[in-house]
């Protein structure tokens, strides 16, 4: 049963610290998404990659967030320095682009981040 995995599942850190979240997409999927979910804003797209190349990261605060795909099995989202307003659940999703139709996105379990 192929799944997206994310680590860590929970992270509590102090303001100013660096946070790195990791995602392993489903093998064979060529598109990876990073989302942030809060009660106030709902699910927001931060960035997405196709074949490891960043296609759109306009949803990310550029001064503190960065997203990379060092290889096809790993995507990372980094926050440096972290702030209390970054507290949220961060989801990674992966999908396969088809010639027709949308991606079907498969979400990981999320990383619950609390910045104090």
């Amino acid at each position, binding site marked *: 049963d192929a799944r997206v995995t994310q680590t860590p599942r929970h992270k509590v850190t102090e303001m100013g610290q660096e946070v790195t979240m990791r995602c392993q997409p489903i093998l064979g999927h060529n598109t990876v998404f990073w989302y942030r979910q809060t009660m106030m804003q709902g*699910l927001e797209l931060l960035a997405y990659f196709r074949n490891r190349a960043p296609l759109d990261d306009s949803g990310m605060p550029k001064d503190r967030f960065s997203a990379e795909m060092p290889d096809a099995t790993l995507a990372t989202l980094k926050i440096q320095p972290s702030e209390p307003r970054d507290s949220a659940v961060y989801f990674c999703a992966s999908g396969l682009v088809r010639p027709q139709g949308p991606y079907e*996105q498969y979400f990981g379990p999320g990383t*619950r981040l609390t910045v104090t």
Partner: protein
Amino acid sequence: QKEVEQDPGPLSVPEGAIVSLNCTYSNSAFQYFMWYRQYSRKGPELLMYTYSSGNKEDGRFTAQVDKSSKYISLFIRDSQPSDSATYLCAMSAKERNYGQNFVFGPGTRLSVLP
């Protein structure tokens, strides 16, 4: 006005009821419509997707799209307590250069009471 609107609920219904969940949208370019279910403290999971207007049925779930009214619905028949979750609609339109992108609604929280 947000691009996709959805009543946040919570919506409480008795077991066995027919549930109707709805989204309205403003972008007429959307042509793919999806419903996701999200259990508490889990990631969203795809329930159904439809292309353009019409109905699609899958077991107890029926998705309906009315592009002329910019309105989509998800019906759940014979609702069960296990259907208690947040339901998010999502939609996409082809981008000119980069393929497709998703917009999610804020979600409706559903509770099915035994």
